[in-house]
C-alpha cells in the first residue's frame, strides 16, 4: 500500500514548492525554474503512478490525514479518497501543469515578479490536485478558495495590460459569490449530517432529502456551476482568459473549469445521488444546451483571439455538462472524455495564441494576417487544435462528440422526451459553428496576406514549441486510439461516478468493497485499425505526390504592402489585373450572411454582456435562485 501516500505527497509537494519558490526563487531564474519543475514533475509522476492501482486493479485509495480513522463508523478527520473518477480528472490536470510550466519558463521570462507568478502557479496546481483527490467536503471548499484567489491574482498578473485588473476584479467578485454559496451549502449539510466526509454524507442523505439539504443541494450546484463557468455565470471568464498570460489561460480552461465539473459530479452523483431523477437530468441538459449555443454564437462575433477561445471554453464545458446531465453510461463516458479532450485541444489552442502573442505582440485578429509563412509550426499546431475542437473525424474532438450525440439520441429514444433530440440538434449545430469560428481565426491570423509591418515575426523558441507538439500528438492519439483510452481510463471513471455505495463502503474501511457494484461497459467498435492503416498509407502517398509535383513552380515570397509589390506577375495573387495591394479579409468581415440573420439575437447579447460587475453578480444570484427553485420543486 505504498501508493496510499502518493496523493498527499503530490498535493503537499506543490504547496511546499509554492512556499520555496517564494523564498528562494525571486532572485535567480534557474533556481526558480528548477524548484517549479521538481515539484510539478513530482506531482505528475505520483499521479500517473496511481493509474495502475486505481484504474487497472480497480482499488480505491483512502488516506486519513494524521491517521484520524473514523470512530465507530463516523468520519472525523479529513479523508483523501482517490477513486477512478477523481484520478481521471487528476491525470489530465497534472499533464496540463507540466506542459504549462514548461511553456511559461520561456514565455514569461520577459516579465518581472516571476517569483510571485510561480508561487501563484504552484498554489493553483496544488488547489486543483487537492480538490481532485479529496474526499472531504470542507477540504474541497478550501481548495476551491485557493484556486479562486490564485486565479484572480494570475488573471491580473500583467496589470499593465488593458483590462487585466478589471478582469481580476470581476473574477474575484463572481468567484467569491460562488464560493460563499458553496460555504453556505457545506454549512447546511454539516448542520444536517454532522460530518464533512463526502462518502458519509452521501450515505446519510441517501433517500431522505430534507428541505434544508435540498436547499444545500441548490446552493452547491450553483456554487460549483460558478466554478465551472456555465451559462449565467460565465461572464468573468471572457475577460480573465483574455488578459491572463497564455499558460495561465491554458490552466484556467484546462483545469479550473474542470474542477467545477468534478464538483458538480461529486455533488450530484455521489453526495446527493439525485441524478436518477428525470427533472435533474433535464435541468442539466437545458443548462448545457444554453451554454453551448450562446457561447458559440458570441464567439463568432469576437475579433480578439483569446476572447474567442474563452467563449469556446464555455461552450465546450456546456457539452460536458449536457453529457453528464444525460446520466446514462455512454453519456457520462462521453462527457468525461470530452472534458479530457477539451483540456488537451483548448490547452493547445491557448498555447498557440500565446505563441502568436509572443511573436507578434498582439492577439487582435484585425492586425494579424498571413502568419503561416512566418510561423509554420505554430500554424500547423493551431490547425490540429482547430480541427480537434470542431470535431473533424481523425481528431479527438470527434470521438467524444460522437459519443455525446449517440448518448443524447439514445436517451431521447428510450425516454421519448423530445428535449434530448433538441439537445442533439443543438449540439451538432454548435459544433459546426465552432468550426466556423475557427475557420475565421485560421483565415484571419494564419492564412491570407502578411502585413508588411508584421515582417519581423519569427517562430517561437523551441521550449515553447515542445508543449504544442505534445498537445497536437495527444489530440491525434486520443482521436484515433480512443478505444484504448476508453478501456483503460474512461470506463473505471464512469463506473466510479455511478457507484456511490462502493465509494462509501471503501471510505469507511473495507477496501474489499472496491470491486462490488455493477460495472457498465460500452462497445465502440467503429474504426477497425486495418482500414486506418491502409487509409493512412494512401494519404501519405498522396502527400508525397503533392509535394513532389510542385517543385518548380513557386515564386519568391511576396510581402503585400511592401516595396516588391509584384514579384513577377505570374506568381502574384490574382487581383483582377490590379497590382496586388494589401487587402486582407479580416475576421470581422466574415460570415456576413449569418450575422445579418442573427443581428437581433446579437443585440440581445450585446446588452447582456455590458461589462459592469453588479449586473454579472445579479446574473449569478438570479441563476442560483432559479436552480434552487427547480431543485425544490422537482427533485423532492
Amino acid at each position, binding site marked *: 500500500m505504498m501508493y496510499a501516500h502518493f496523493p498527499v505527497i503530490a498535493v503537499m509537494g506543490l504547496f511546499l514548492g509554492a512556499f520555496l519558490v517564494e523564498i528562494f526563487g525571486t532572485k535567480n531564474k534557474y533556481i526558480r525554474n528548477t524548484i517549479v519543475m521538481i515539484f510539478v514533475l513530482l506531482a505528475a509522476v505520483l499521479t500517473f503512478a496511481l493509474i495502475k492501482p486505481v484504474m487497472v486493479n480497480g482499488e480505491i485509495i483512502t488516506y486519513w490525514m494524521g491517521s484520524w480513522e473514523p470512530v465507530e463508523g463516523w468520519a472525523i478527520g479529513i479523508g483523501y479518497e482517490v477513486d477512478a473518477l477523481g484520478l481521471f480528472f487528476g491525470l489530465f490536470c497534472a499533464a496540463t501543469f507540466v506542459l504549462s510550466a514548461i511553456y511559461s519558463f520561456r514565455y514569461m521570462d520577459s516579465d518581472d515578479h516571476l517569483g510571485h507568478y510561480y508561487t501563484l502557479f504552484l498554489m493553483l496546481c496544488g488547489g486543483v490536485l487537492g480538490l481532485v483527490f479529496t474526499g472531504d467536503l470542507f477540504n474541497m471548499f478550501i481548495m476551491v478558495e485557493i484556486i479562486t484567489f490564485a486565479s484572480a491574482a494570475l488573471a491580473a498578473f500583467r496589470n499593465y495590460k488593458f483590462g487585466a485588473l478589471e478582469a481580476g476584479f470581476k473574477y474575484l467578485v463572481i468567484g467569491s459569490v460562488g464560493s460563499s454559496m458553496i460555504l453556505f451549502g457545506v454549512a447546511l449539510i454539516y448542520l444536517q449530517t454532522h460530518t464533512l466526509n463526502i462518502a458519509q454524507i452521501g450515505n446519510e442523505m441517501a433517500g431522505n432529502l430534507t428541505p434544508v439539504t435540498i436547499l444545500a443541494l441548490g446552493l452547491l450546484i450553483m456554487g460549483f456551476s460558478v466554478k465551472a463557468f456555465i451559462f449565467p455565470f460565465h461572464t468573468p471568464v471572457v475577460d480573465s482568459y483574455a488578459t491572463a498570460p497564455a499558460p495561465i489561460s491554458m490552466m484556467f480552461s484546462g483545469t479550473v473549469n474542470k474542477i467545477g465539473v468534478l464538483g458538480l459530479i461529486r455533488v450530484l452523483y455521489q453526495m446527493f445521488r439525485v441524478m436518477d431523477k428525470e427533472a435533474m437530468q433535464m435541468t442539466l441538459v437545458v443548462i448545457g444546451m444554453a451554454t453551448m449555443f450562446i457561447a458559440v454564437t458570441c464567439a463568432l462575433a469576437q475579433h480578439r483571439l483569446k476572447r474567442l477561445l474563452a467563449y469556446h471554453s464555455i461552450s465546450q464545458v456546456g457539452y460536458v455538462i449536457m453529457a453528464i446531465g444525460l446520466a446514462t453510461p455512454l453519456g457520462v463516458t462521453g462527457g468525461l472524455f470530452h472534458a479530457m479532450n477539451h483540456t488537451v485541444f483548448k490547452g493547445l489552442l491557448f498555447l498557440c495564441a500565446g505563441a502568436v502573442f509572443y511573436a507578434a505582440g498582439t492577439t487582435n485578429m484585425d492586425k494579424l494576417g498571413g502568419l503561416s509563412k512566418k510561423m509554420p509550426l505554430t500554424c500547423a499546431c493551431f490547425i490540429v487544435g482547430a480541427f480537434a475542437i470542431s470535431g473533424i473525424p481523425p481528431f479527438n474532438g470527434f470521438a467524444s462528440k460522437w459519443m455525446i450525440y449517440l448518448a443524447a439520441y439514445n436517451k431521447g429514444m428510450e425516454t421519448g422526451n423530445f428535449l434530448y433530440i433538441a439537445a442533439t440538434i443543438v449540439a451538432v449545430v454548435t459544433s459546426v459553428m465552432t468550426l466556423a469560428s475557427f475557420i475565421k481565426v485560421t483565415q484571419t491570423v494564419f492564412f491570407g496576406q502578411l502585413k508588411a509591418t508584421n515582417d519581423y515575426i519569427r517562430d517561437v523558441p523551441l521550449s515553447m514549441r515542445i508543449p504544442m507538439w505534445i498537445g497536437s500528438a495527444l489530440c491525434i492519439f486520443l482521436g484515433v486510439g480512443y478505444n484504448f483510452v476508453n478501456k483503460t481510463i474512461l470506463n473505471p471513471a464512469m463506473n466510479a461516478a455511478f457507484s456511490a455505495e462502493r465509494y462509501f463502503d471503501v471510505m469507511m474501511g473495507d477496501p474489499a468493497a472496491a470491486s462490488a457494484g455493477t460495472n457498465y461497459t460500452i462497445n465502440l467498435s467503429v474504426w477497425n485499425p486495418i482500414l486506418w492503416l491502409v487509409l493512412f498509407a494512401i494519404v501519405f502517398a498522396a502527400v508525397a505526390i503533392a509535394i513532389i509535383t510542385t517543385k518548380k513552380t513557386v515564386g519568391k515570397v511576396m510581402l503585400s504592402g511592401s516595396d516588391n509589390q509584384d514579384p*513577377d*506577375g505570374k506568381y502574384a495573387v*490574382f487581383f483582377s*489585373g*490590379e497590382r496586388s495591394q494589401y487587402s486582407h479579409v479580416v475576421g470581422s468581415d466574415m460570415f456576413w450572411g449569418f450575422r445579418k440573420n442573427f443581428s437581433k439575437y446579437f443585440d440581445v447579447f450585446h446588452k447582456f454582456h455590458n461589462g459592469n460587475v453588479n449586473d454579472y453578480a445579479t446574473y449569478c444570484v438570479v441563476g442560483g435562485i432559479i436552480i434552487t427553485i427547480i431543485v425544490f420543486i422537482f427533485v423532492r
Partner: protein
Amino acid sequence: MSVLSKIIADSASKSPWIYHINTGSCNGCDIELVAVLTPRYDAERFGFKLTGSPRHADIVVVSGPITTQSEERLKRTLEQVPEPKCVVSLGSCPQSGNVFKGSYSIEGPLEKYVHVDVTVAGCTPKPEAVIEGLYKAAGILKKKREAMKK
C-alpha cells in the same frame, strides 16, 4: 505513360476554357462572345466554358483596343494564365485599334504584348466566326500541349 499523355494532349483541345479580357471594347464583341454560349450557337458542344479566373483559363480572348488604363492590367492577367495557353483577338480593335487608331489613349495592337494565336476579324464578328476562331485556338492548344511535353 504515353497513353495517358496522349489522352491529356487530346483532352487539351476538347475542353478549352475561355477567359475574356475587355481592354476598352465597345462591348459589341463582348456580347458576341457571350452570344456564342446561347442555345442557338451553343459553343458548349465543344467544351467551351467561360471561367472566372485566369488561373483556370486555356484560351484568353481579348477584345477592345488596348487603352492606356487597361494595358498594365492586360499584361499582368496574361502572365497569370498557366501554360499551355492561346490568345485570341476578337474583332478588329485589338489588331489595329479600328476607328480609335491614332488616339492619344490607345496603346497600339495586341501583337505588341503577346503573340496572337488566332485573329477573328470583323467589327463584331459573326458568332459562327467566333466559334470557328475558338475552335482553331483549341486545335492550337493541343499542339502547344504536345510541344510542352517534349
